[in-house]
């Protein structure tokens, strides 16, 4: 599936929720099911600090494809981290760099990506794209 197709799938899933509580219950569930990042990457070197919550992010590059793993100390943040990984992980650096992240708006989670939230997510997307750029230039 392309990034756009995964995004469509996520948007379709979120359209089923009737109210905010269902949506957040789903995010909490996703937060709990996120494969935990390898402990060796849960250090200050990999941390993206917000004043509200922390995100740890690592990326691997195998045969032209980028794989992300991440964690957060807050479950809702972790749920959104999981969504971002589901959308961007397993794609080529070019696809990741070209990816439009508008789907966040469509599923009504834009407030969490606002820089004022300081939960590390805005910087996380930037960091994911930076990884892609670094891998691309490495070839």
């Amino acid at each position, binding site marked *: 599936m392309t990034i756009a197709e995964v995004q469509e799938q996520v948007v379709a899933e979120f359209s089923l929720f009737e109210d*905010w*509580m269902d949506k957040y219950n789903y995010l909490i569930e996703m937060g709990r099911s996120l494969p935990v990042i390898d402990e060796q990457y849960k250090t200050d070197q990999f941390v993206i600090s917000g004043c509200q919550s922390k995100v740890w992010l690592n990326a691997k590059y195998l045969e032209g494809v980028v794989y992300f793993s991440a964690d957060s100390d807050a479950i*809702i943040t972790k749920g959104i981290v999981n969504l971002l990984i589901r959308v961007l992980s397993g794609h080529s650096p070019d696809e990741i760099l070209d990816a439009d992240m508008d789907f966040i708006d469509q599923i009504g989670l834009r407030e969490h990506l606002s820089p004022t939230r300081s939960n590390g997510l805005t910087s996380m997307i930037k960091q994911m794209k930076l990884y892609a750029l670094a891998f691309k230039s490495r070839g």
Partner: protein
Amino acid sequence: MTNFPVDLIRKDFPILNQTVYGRPLVYFDNAASTQKPVQVIRAISGYYETDNCNIHRGVHYLSQRATEVYEDTRKQIRQFINAASSQEIIFTRGTTESINLVASSYGKQYVNPGDEVIVSVMEHHSNFVPWQLMCQERGAKLRIIPIVESGELDMNAFRGMVNERTKIIAITHVSNVLGTINPVKEIIQHAHTFGIPVLVDGAQSISHLGADVKDLDCDFYCFSGHKMYAPMGIGVLYGKEKYLDAMPPYQSGGEMIKEVHLSGTTFNDLPFKFEAGTPNVEGVYGLRVAISYIQELGMENIAVYEKELLDYATEKLTAMGDIRIIGTAKEKTSLISFLIGSIHPYDAGVIIDKMGIAVRTGHHCAMPLLEWYKIPATVRASFAFYNTTEEIDLMVEAILKVKQMFG
């Protein structure tokens, strides 16, 4: 409950009368900024409708009128905080600028390599970082008063810290995270036996306790308008004349000068020496009315009512069982920081927000304090005199929802 006229008061705060996410707004983030009564809002728009102009400069009618209000407000603040002279009242942008002014100007004049400056571990970053930077610049040492588990200062440690190398002590009157009311009078008395001046950060106390700088005998006192029902961008620095006179200017420009020649500049007298540039006149108009507003309600009445809110909230949260209250000092203002079981404050804050309740989550610009408690953040509810026990019940309901969702 006392007969505090909260229903009438709420009518003065139009912002409170709205719904967010389809629920009535409950505003419990008053320690970050208070709402403004309609009287203050009208004072600001009134200023622009009839009085707007630059002050202290024109001989024309509008300038004279606005200058008069501006300077009358300075006198009103002198009386409000019981300062000896209105020359000791400097208008600033807020507490942060007031503290930066003192750290910079006092530091240049009085602090030398090997000297010491004392702050506490519970300071807001704005009463911590300016001193840390000044100490680095001046080659001085920053010493930190520790606290005990309840969130009260370790006064024995403080006494042991004061010596002939100490050049200034900067201490918050009330902690923005814990609500602790510090024994600043005792600190000042002790410091003065060594001849050391004390700066009191009044940002969190002014709207709850008022201030009496004569009774405290503090040497500097700082507060912000926006945390006491006045607009943002206006604040006050009180300083004893003997220090303000000796300190060099902080910023330079118009208004603060006496004479400017190609060969050099002489500076204006107090308070203008520290008020460079066009000031925030609309802010002063708003501050004037905000002070009158709280004086009419009466500081005593406000304190009694807010204590009832605090006691009610503390009782309700304690009864929930797995709530950890951070800050259990005997003397507190109406502020309560807490953790819900092992739930991350950000998670709690997101859900509480969706329930229409504005609380603050995060480190509250007091990272050294949270490091001391070894916690990343807290949820903080801070009450003002327009809040009600019914609103606290709504918060309790929201916390139950949080527990249900994350439990």
